[in-house]
């Protein structure tokens, strides 16, 4: 029997929640980034599901663009991490506390 739309959406929700918790909980910046990627992917899944449901192709294009952006973001973000690493010798997010009062 076919899988209803809801299942996909619920799955997407689960993935998103996992991603959020991951961002908040991890101390390693790299892991944090990966959790963000998980969140983005969850969004992608929802998009494709709805696109299929509404029988419109726009969702696919949207996903395409999202992934492009995710790639760009990953690149720049990692560059930043490298720069930080050069400065601090660590990728612990807790060491980034210059904004403290």
């Amino acid at each position, binding site marked *: 029997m076919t899988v209803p739309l*809801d299942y996909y959406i619920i799955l997407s929700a689960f993935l998103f929640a996992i991603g959020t918790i991951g961002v908040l909980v991890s101390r390693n910046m790299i892991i944090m980034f990966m*959790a963000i990627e998980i969140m983005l*992917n969850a969004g992608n899944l929802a998009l*494709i599901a709805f696109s299929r449901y509404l029988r419109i192709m726009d969702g*696919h294009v949207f996903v395409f663009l999202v992934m492009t952006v*995710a790639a760009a973001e990953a690149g*720049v973000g990692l560059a930043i991490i*490298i720069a930080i690493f050069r400065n601090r010798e660590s990728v612990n997010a807790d060491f980034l506390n210059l904004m403290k009062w």
Partner: protein
Amino acid sequence: MEMLVFIVAAVIALASAVMVITVKNPVGSILYLLLSIMAQSVLYVMLSGLFVAAFLVLIYGGAILVLFLFVVMMLNIRYADLGVDTLGRLKPWAWVFGIVLLAELVWITMGRMTRFAGVDETFGSVPEVARLLYGKFVYPFELTSILLLAAIIGAVVMTRKGH
């Protein structure tokens, strides 16, 4: 049958996502992420998104995760170094609210079981995507190229030594 495939793929995706966060070794995290991506790709195929499924594996597995791996290797990050867990007091809140978020999102969709209608074969194929990409969405498409350019320049500038 379809349901079985769905469940397997879904479980794999979720489990590996959880593993991404919990594994100590960063390389392990990357690999588990890759596994999750693969599972999701399967789901995409089930949703007739052939192009995006391939695209997903290509971009993520082929580019993004490789990038992550490079960085991890280069910086020689091992076991995430300890330090004061600044989130200490807030950690329970993070878990609580993560779960609440989940609950909310589920609640939204609950009880509206909807079925997919059928689609013809060309749905989700490359020509269809291309038609939209170069037609209706040509501007965003071009703009993303500029975005990528900016990202490249940014990354290069950021990591230059000597400034």
